[in-house]
């Protein structure tokens, strides 16, 4: 067990933690806006809930990245592999897009979703458009996830473990 493994786990932790923090802030923000709406009109709960869930995916993506990495390096469900410091650093770096991209996109997606609550309040039939606006931001979380996951897979090809 050396610095390499520690760095890799640090990367996994960063992806899960920052994605999670971003989503927690995001889901919280939209939840507050949604609660205001529902206090006026409880029948709009379902629509508000969907908007609230949207910034929650970053936490999930961060978790996914962390999990894939932890499986790759054998921390979950196997024997942990030995990594050199450099290899560990590579894994750490691979997690950064998800950690940073997830964190920031979750918060911005939440801002869009929270404004979308206004659409639901005034024009409930147009709620699909509110969802679409929020989904635009999500793209960049998906891209972050993608590059992190691809990097993890590729690095494990390079270092052979």
């Amino acid at each position, binding site marked *: 067990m050396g610095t390499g493994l520690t760095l890799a786990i640090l990367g996994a932790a960063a992806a899960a933690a920052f994605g999670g923090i971003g989503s927690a802030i995001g889901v919280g923000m939209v939840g507050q806006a949604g609660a205001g709406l529902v206090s006026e009109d409880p029948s709009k709960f379902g629509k508000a809930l969907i908007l609230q869930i949207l910034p929650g995916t970053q936490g*999930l993506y961060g978790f996914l990245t962390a999990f894939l990495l932890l499986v790759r390096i054998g921390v979950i469900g196997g024997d942990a592999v030995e990594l050199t410091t450099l290899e560990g650093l590579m894994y750490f770096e691979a997690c950064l897009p998800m950690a940073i991209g997830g964190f920031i996109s979750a918060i911005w997606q939440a801002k869009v979703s929270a404004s979308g609550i206004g659409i639901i309040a005034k024009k409930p039939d147009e709620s*699909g458009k509110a969802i*679409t606006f929020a989904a635009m931001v999500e*793209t960049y979380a998906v891209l972050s996830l993608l590059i992190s996951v691809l990097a993890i*897979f590729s690095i494990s090809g390079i270092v052979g473990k």
Partner: protein
Amino acid sequence: MAKLKMKRFEAVCAIEDSRDLVDWLQRCGFVELSEFEEDDRLARLSVGTSVSQFEKILSAAESALKNLDKYAPEKKSFLESFNYGVEISSKEYEERSENIDGIISKCIKINSTAKKIDENKAAAARYRALSDQLEPWLALDVPMQFRGTGSTAAFIGSFQKEYDIDGLTLAIGAEEPEIDFYAEVVFSSRDQTGVFVLCAKDDAQKMESALRSLGFVKPSDPTRHRPEIRFERYQKQISTLEDEIYEHTQNLADYGNLRRDIEFAADYFSVKRDKYKALANIAANDKLIALKGFLPERKAAKLVEKIEKKFIAAVAVTEPSDDEETPVLLKNGRFGGAVESVTEMYSIPGKDDVDPNPVMAFFYYILFGIMLSDAGYGVVMVVAMLFAKSKLRLSSGMKKATDMFLYCGISTVFWGAMFGSWFGDIAQVVALQFFGRELPSLALWFEPVDDPMKMMLFSFLIGIVHLFAGLAVKFSMLWKSGQRLAAFFDVIPVYLLVMGAAPLGAGIITEISPAISAAGKYLAIAGVALIVLTSGRSSKNIFGKLGGGLYGLYNIGAGYLGDILSYSRLLALGLSTGVIASVINLLGTMASGTFLKAVMLIFVFIFGHTVNIAINLIGTYVHTNRLQYVEFFSKFYEGGGRAFTPLKVNTKYYSIKED
């Protein structure tokens, strides 16, 4: 299967038949009325007061239903809440509408009773607050207005401060040492002390200023009798109010069995309101009415025949003029119609648009399946949708939604099986944990987790096919409208460029045979050349043409690159479903001991996968929509049309069957 062709419709009808004609049109439900121009012979009907009258009655019925929901809630299972519209015949509709006035007066009664309950609750709360204020004074055995006897002066009031009797005596003594007085602490808390102070009448003024300087305040509403008496009166009032609330609540609960009738009334008056709103479009004089509007061509012949047979009326059906904006009604089969709501959410097809649904539906199901990509989840969807379709009475919108998710579910089963995901890796987990056997992958094709690069290339390929389909629609639209040259120049070079560049791009990730990449190179060059030469063609001089061409190349190159890369979400969402499903299975097997493990797995499996399905369904739905809206529609679709809104029987609780 597309946008229905619309015809203009104009009719005149004898005034004595007018009421029946409008009723009949509303029941048919496929004529949209538009404003008939007034002139000196015809004046439009003024219906504003009737409409607002009906609105008022309707809102009384609706709020009566809301009050019943509150005071006589109906027990409805989760599944029943999806049921729509009890069916009744039009004969029953007529019969039931006869005693509608009685129902409305009951509605008004329900609302006024509910209002009384609210008022009583507010009054009770007010009395409670007052008696809370009074409660500390209960220990006082003289009226709070007591000013003293013939020879004494009494002061009753409070300080914003805590005193005990010694502290109070000391404080008053320090302020006015020469007076004899008697003091009593009625109540005392941290921030308030109620006191009774008695002194000789001659000293009253001195005492008063002494108390004042200590911060003495007289009560704002002193009692005339002992506080206890007023307190009891309050309690009595509260209990009377509560008895009334109870009584009213019981009364309302008894109205519960009127719910069906009130629902009927709500439907009845909303139909009436719609009719009168439509009547505002009609012009009339003392002999006849004149109306006009739109109707779908396929209904026209039959409608004209029926109207002229049934009523004293004359109808003309004509072709709308080219610059007229006709309303849009879509007609698709089950397969394409299911996704209509997705398109409508974006925009109704505009004047020059084709109906995108048939093409879109096919891709919608495929993209949805690849993104959800778990056969187990697909099976759950299919079963749930089949159950809903067979067991529940669904509104037409819900029917389309269940159809859509049914097809999406089937596609999900297919792609899940291709990628070997059945509730994640539950089969392998169970085999390994309980039977000690390693199961091979169940994938019919390959598992994306094992070879994400392959999956990514596949995603891009699907994306290219999707985009090309969009371009093909554009090609056919341009071709049909006669712009054949534009059709070629806008579509073919893009095909060449993308088809040529794709193998070159794929070469970065994986090995491509040299022959293909060489061919790709030439295709791409041909595409680039064509784009540079043609996309500036609207410009007049040679430099404009060249500049426009280069700009077009940049736009098309960057645009299509971005569009295609966007399909990598197919990989990302697919991975996220599968991997999280596997994590759930893994969590389920954390316990030790076969029995405990089995029990835990069952619980974790049910809970975990339910949550995962829900979250991924939302994610998949959102991203599939996005790919259709942003990547696909941008290739050919304008939108901005106006939906066809015919005068029809639009009910919420009952569906009326014509006989």
